[in-house]
């Protein structure tokens, strides 16, 4: 087996001002091109895991290594990682195209190439021609796609998705989920996908990491996980009786 693309070893982290650690001795490895779903109840540290990888939450101890380079202390904007928030966090003062182009602009992509890439990515998410739209005029599903396009545009080495379907209704989610799965597959992305919904995790992920109280308590393929949950808690999360 090739060396892991991303590895976290014995990571401890806590929110500023908090009494206790939100991540405890967490270790996790992901291979290139692998999609890992992170499943856990709320408060288990799923989002904090993504924030540590993105550099938005500093670690107290432990190391984060990406593609063989220790990035533990590298500033967020130099990590080349994509992160998509549950609330999408679209820039309200920019139109759709400018939102998508933002990362390209920060990476000094020339203007001509920038517009080409924006058009390409918007087509990819099915929003061709939406470039000049105001983000406040978009529907929930459209916002979600713009956020995805914005994350994908600079071609990050790794994308982190924090409950990307969390703010959408059931019908929309059922429609978008296969599309997202296909997109990830088509682009060969390495991704970490946080969700509390087992269906989503099972549909998208190559492997699923189950988190509880700041640690990964089990990591396995969906089938293995389903067959042999490591504990009652994991079983409960999977909806087993």
């Amino acid at each position: 087996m090739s060396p892991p693309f991303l590895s976290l070893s014995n990571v401890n982290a806590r929110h500023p001002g908090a009494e206790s650690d939100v991540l405890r001795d967490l270790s996790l490895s992901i291979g290139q091109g692998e999609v890992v779903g992170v499943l856990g109840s709320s408060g288990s540290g799923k989002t904090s895991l993504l924030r540590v990888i993105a550099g938005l939450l500093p670690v107290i101890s432990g190391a984060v290594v990406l593609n063989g380079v220790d990035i533990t202390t590298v500033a967020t904007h130099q990590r080349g990682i994509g992160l998509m928030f549950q609330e999408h966090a679209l820039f309200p003062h920019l139109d759709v195209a400018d939102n998508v182009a933002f990362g390209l602009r920060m990476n000094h992509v020339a203007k001509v190439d920038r517009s080409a890439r924006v058009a390409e990515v918007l087509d990819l998410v099915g929003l061709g021609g939406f470039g000049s739209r105001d983000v406040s005029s978009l529907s929930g599903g459209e916002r979600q796609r713009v956020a995805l396009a914005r994350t994908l545009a600079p071609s990050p080495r790794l994308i982190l998705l924090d409950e990307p379907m969390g703010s959408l209704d059931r019908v929309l989610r059922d429609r978008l989920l296969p599309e997202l799965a296909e997109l990830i597959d088509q682009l060969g992305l390495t991704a970490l996908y946080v969700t509390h919904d087992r269906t989503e995790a099972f549909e998208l992920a190559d492997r699923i990491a189950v988190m509880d109280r700041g640690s990964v308590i089990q990591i396995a393929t969906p089938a293995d996980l389903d067959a042999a949950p490591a504990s009652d808690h994991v079983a409960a999360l999977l909806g087993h009786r």
Partner: protein
Amino acid sequence: MVSSVPLSRARRNDAQRHRRFRWRSITALPPLVFLGVFFVWPVVAILLRGLRPNGIWNLAVFGEVLADPTMQRVMWFTLWEAVASTVLCVLVALPGAAMFARFRFKGKGFLWSALLVPFVLPTVVVAVSMLGIIGDGGVTGVNLSGTVWAILIAHVFFNYAVVVRTVGATWSTIDPRLEESARVLGAPSWRVFVDITWPLIRSSVAAASSIVFLFSFTSFGIVLILGGIRHRTLEVEIYDQTAKFLHLDIAAVLAVLQLVIVVAILVWFGRSQRRRAVIFEQRSASEIEHPPETRAQRGFIIANLVFMSLLFGVPLLVLVVRSFSTPDGWGFGFYRALTDTRGGSTSFVPPIDAIGNSLLFATMATVIAVVLGLCAAWTIAGGGAASSDSPLGRWTDTALMIPLGTSAVTVGFGFLIVFDEPPLNLRSSLWLIPIAHAIVALPFVVRLLVPALRSIDPRLREAASTLGASPSRVWWTVDVPIVGRALAAAAGFAFAVSLGEFGATAFLVRPDRPTMPIAIYRALGRPGEYNFGQAMAMSTLLMVLTVIVILAIDRFRPAGVSEF
């Protein structure tokens, strides 16, 4: 967490829109009539007295004044010192706003309230304190008195809170995930600020700037005391031409100029504010603020606190120290002297009475300002859909700001010539004081209430309407409870403005009803250690009272919608 999602307009039919418009026009009436009677009328009357003496227009005086090199210098200086003060104030206050918006630290709530103290302190008290620091022979050894720097520093001193509290309030509602998204997408800190934060706070910066500009543009006491004799503003010139020389023609020309510039600036600010306004989902501040994480963040907070203690702490400390430093050593001698009746002199102000009068006038002014402010804010906020922005509302907003940019002596002398006959023979009426205070407080009240009204989800109003509620009932049952907290904050702010108001009060006050700032001036107008000490002691009491009032208000402060 309230979102201002525009409502799809198709659902509202034309008749309804028409009715709403009429209703909105009616609520605009009380504040506009009030402004018309107590501001426009006196000002127009005094201007006409100057420009149309004996019924004949004398417009040639415009040419004479405009061609006078001394006046040209005054106009130019006024304009550029106001612009420089505004820019400087915004530059030094933005880091402060950022600190309050993003971080949680010990004493934050107190500091946020205490920031308003300089805003309400009488100019002369602060100026004399400042002379002790940056004046001739001041403790720093740097003599800035008579220079533009002294004026600029004092303007920053008085207006810092306006910028920090206005911008800080908006900043604290910006979802930090926007900035985080930008960082993840490769933006270094400075680009996050330039590309994300700045566009979102820009309209509140414009709102604060317009107030700072007006205050600096009409600066009077600071320019006189700290600016030396070579620096004169239009305000100083208008005062001299009116009160000292009774050259009403020259004064009228200058007042017209002042009005023209003020209106032009207000319209320009208003326009840029609207053009650039971005409606975004607001977060509650408590969700966002966090303790400093890194050494750089701790350093940032410390640097801000050091700056604030230099700018405010030192002058205010000088003042407090002087109030305790009696000829017989440290003690409460000057505070005790406040109760010395000086042989029953009419100029004596028992401190309790001064405090009582201040509180009484402030209460009356608050009631007037809040009632009228609510009407005005409802008109401006559109009374309905969040995004609607009527010309009537825009003009109401601008009109209410104009008094802040108008000379107190113009209004004061105007009062004398228009309110001289029944039924409005108010020239020596006590009511003029709270009325004048209310005029000053109105723009602040309105600017606090408008965002709160706009944040009301229009669907609530529609729901109420469809259930058969009349417009007034909708207003009473939906709007009032929701804006209650903003209302409390506005009331407190009006109260504080009234506590500190001096310019207009000095024209209108009666000796048996002096306010605290008036008592301070009276003590300072006489020689002797005890008179000076009493002025310092009374100023200290005013500071304490202000902090108490503002602390009480801030407890009511609505998360996310408050300005100032």
